[in-house]
């Protein structure tokens, strides 16, 4: 995380109050954004079709993502809003994923089926 932070500092104006918790948070958001964008680009380069599944993004978004230059990436990442959000925004999947029975795999494979199904449905729509 810290190495990435150094890179970002070059581009984005320094936070006004160094110690304020909010500025530290937005710096971390920038880090998360940049890490996410770079990871996504890398995944798309390695295997596009698999990356679309893992990322859960459409072909159109993937095309834009892979065409971004590093300068654009830095600029986009420097927002105080997180670019990535939860793909499965309902309690059913999250209840299954956070099932308290750790050694029981059936809730987790159940979640995997639901997540794969929704990724497929989202891509088809």
């Amino acid at each position, binding site marked *: 995380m810290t190495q990435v932070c150094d890179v970002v500092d070059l581009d984005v104006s320094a936070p006004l109050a160094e110690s304020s918790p909010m500025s530290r948070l937005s710096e971390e958001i920038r880090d998360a954004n940049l890490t996410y964008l770079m990871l996504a680009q890398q995944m798309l380069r390695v*295997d596009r*079709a*698999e990356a*679309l*599944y*893992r990322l859960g993004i459409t*072909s159109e978004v993937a095309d834009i993502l892979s065409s971004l230059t590093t300068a654009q990436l830095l600029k986009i990442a420097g927002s105080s809003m997180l670019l990535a959000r939860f793909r499965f925004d309902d309690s*059913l999947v999250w209840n299954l994923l956070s099932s308290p029975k*750790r*050694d029981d*795999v*059936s809730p*987790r*494979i*159940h979640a*995997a*089926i*639901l997540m*794969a*199904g929704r*990724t*497929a449905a989202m*891509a*088809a729509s």
Partner: protein
Amino acid sequence: MARAKSVLSEARQIEIASELIRLDARLQVLEAEVQLSRERLLRLYREIRGKSPPKGMLPFSTDWFMTWQPNVHASLFMNVHRHQIGLDDATAVEALIRAYRLYREQVGQLGLPEVLSITRAWRLTRFFDAGMLGMTACTRCGGEFVTHTFELAHQYVCGLCHMPSRAGKTRRPAKAEPAGAAPR
């Protein structure tokens, strides 16, 4: 099936065939999906595996996919496959290979055995193409599961929402070992 004409497309076919062999596909899968002669496929198989391909018929039953554990695995695979086959530039074989790799990876992360072999997975896609099997949405969780084509959709409940009492009990000895390795 038309034979590959250009050297480049033949190279692509060999690449696909090698990947299928590495995933442990039976020769029948290769013969159906790759445009190379049987002799070349046999030679390729021996070169990669160092032995002759197993002989005999492929598993052919649709009922196997209805039993509890295979159904869970088949449903996971088909959901991934549905995403991969829907992509614009995906061919059937590539979608099969990619979906199978993703399935295997997810099952491995959960510490489960690979119940579905690539040959079974291929068979499954064939059953779907032939309209013998399909996907039905569970009325409780909304997930899509592999069923016979004429499953009664309005009352279908999947095997994970309604677990049979002895579900998964047979794999207890097999599970003992990977369970320790699972939390990664």
